[in-house]
């Protein structure tokens, strides 16, 4: 078993990260995702491909650079360089709430049990746990808290509006 969770279950990762893109011929078969700079540089070539595509973003990257391509993208990978760096929470919320992205939003980097609850509320549905994390134990994170007060990607209304 790996360290990948999708839709609250352990899963096999079908995606291949790819960098060093020069020509269409150099691309591997199957589903790939590339860093934002390479997406911007080789967008046309990539869009001509007949497989699923993803983009990985740093937490300082500008989401508006991909907002018109979201229909064509199946995966967006967002990075937590340190668990304490929470910028990707905002990126995920904007992707879901503002730009309506429906595909997979994946958390990578310093991803630990204790952030999964917050991540899923912000729109992440896939997680590459940091190595060493207990995958089975981490699944509990999705259910150990059941009450939420404020709206987020999973709830349109705050708690005081949900039953009225």
């Amino acid at each position: 078993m790996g360290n990948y969770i999708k839709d609250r279950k352990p899963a096999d990762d079908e995606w291949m990260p790819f960098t060093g893109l020069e020509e269409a011929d150099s691309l591997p078969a199957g589903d790939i995702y590339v860093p934002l700079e390479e997406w911007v540089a080789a967008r046309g070539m990539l869009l001509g491909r007949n497989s699923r595509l993803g983009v990985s973003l740093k937490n300082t990257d500008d989401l508006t650079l991909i907002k018109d391509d979201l229909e064509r993208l199946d995966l967006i990978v967002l990075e937590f360089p340190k668990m304490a760096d929470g910028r990707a929470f905002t990126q995920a919320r904007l992707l879901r709430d503002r730009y309506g992205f429906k595909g997979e939003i994946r958390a990578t980097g310093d991803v630990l049990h204790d952030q999964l609850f917050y991540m899923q509320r912000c729109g992440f549905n896939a997680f590459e746990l940091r190595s060493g994390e207990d995958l089975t134990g981490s699944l509990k994170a999705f259910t150990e808290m059941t009450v939420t007060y404020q709206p987020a990607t999973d709830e349109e209304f705050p708690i005081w509006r949900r039953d009225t």
Partner: protein
Amino acid sequence: MYQYSEQDHQLLLERVEQFRGQVQRRLKGQLSEDEFKQQRLRNGLYLQLHAYMLRVAIPYGLLSAEQMRTLAHIARKYDKGYGHFSTRQNIQYNWPQLEDVPDILDDLAAVEMHAIQTSGNCIRNTTSDPLAGVARDELEDPRPYCELIRQWSTFHPEFNFLPRKFKIAVSGAIHDRAAVAVHDIGLRLVNNAENETGFEIYVGGGLGRTPMIGKLIRDFLPKEDMLTYLEAILRVYNQLGRRDNLYKARIKILVHETGEDEFRALVEEEWQKIKATGLHLREQDIDRIKAFFVDPEYDDLPDTDREFENQILSNPDFARWADKNIELHKQSGYRVVYLSLKSAHQPPGDVTADQMDAIADLADKYSLSQIRTTHRQNLVLSDVKLQDLHALWLELKKLDLATPNYNHMTDIISCPGLDFCALATARSIPISQEITNRFDDYDFVNDLGDLSINISGCINACGHHHVANIGILGVNKKGTEVYQLTLGGSAREDASIGKIIGPAFEADQIVDAVSDVLTVYLDKREDPEETFLTTYRRIGQPPFKEKLYG
């Protein structure tokens, strides 16, 4: 006060279990100390110089008598028999064992209390005016808005890993008793030209090593937009706040470096996109929360009481206390009573378990079973009948809680300093006690009038020395603790940052230096009504400098 719903209770129980799991993972070595730190801090648990320190949230400073008894029980069972009330209206315990903390949280949850977000880089417990709901100068009770902010900010998924800690204060009165200008966000209820009530929004205040007064970024925000606007500010901060340098990560630096106008434009732009979302407050949402804060049933009483007047005339000690520690109440026949936690016998803000129990009993007996905590580290019984004041005073005296010094020089704010704190570089409690002892003379303190002295044991400024009329900052200079003086600060509606006056003083000189400052004031004031701050603002530093340094 706000009564927990089933879901509020459920959330606390789940949080206790979650934290119990985190402690177990730490004890089994599955979480490194560094990772556990991220978790424990979000639950108010610090590792201090000698032990863990647990900070318990007191949302907007409001406690029931029952909650106070639980705080006493925790002090007795899990600590050394006392607790410490902080400048942010919370209570801190200095000696809990890590293994006991989940049980402490269980005990707290039973009375609707917790330690959620009392530290860590998240939105902290919201603070407010300790006289909320009873003040004569109040436009509107700020507590329902604090409660809405509490709910919105609790486990906010997007803003739980911010660049730095984030503090919000709300005030609803003409006079600012919540220090809104020195918070990351300060909200003040105001009326606009159409006589509607809304908020002034201040952003980017704070103390620490770069003290700043908050900037007014919106002069009128309709109440129903409060949470969407806060969300917009937090979103801008989460994305743009600096994370490369711990000391430049607060929102005050972002506002300063971005520029006030540009920052305002960023917030407004974000807000326009979210102002109509589910977080927009409907009138009925505000009314529902307001219903928890309706006025209690007050007796219909005259605003004078002959017996009280006689007691004042016949007992000078009682008269002094009544003059200093009692405030007018919006309800005729009632008064607000300050319980001074600034006697010469305990560190500022400290209360023993026995005192806590006794205070709870007094609240039941005399003040509608509620207690408030203040920004200046005191307690308040907010609804005392005029006719009960003398009886209450007699009981407070026995408890050493009747020092007549509210808002006077011995009402000192002090951080725990080097005696407890891992960050401190100098002691602060002994200095505060030395000052209190030296000036333990009612007539002298009374003559000085409204005057604040605050002491911090390091540059992080937990003792808020920057906003004291006379601020004292302890620093370590080549292995010696020395103390810098700042003059002219204020944390009220005329907020200002005090200025350092000159070279620091040795520990055995600092109290003399304070005495010199007071001498200059007494000499230069135009009449006894002119406060220290007014005099200082009129004459500036030179006369003080001359006296201190010759």
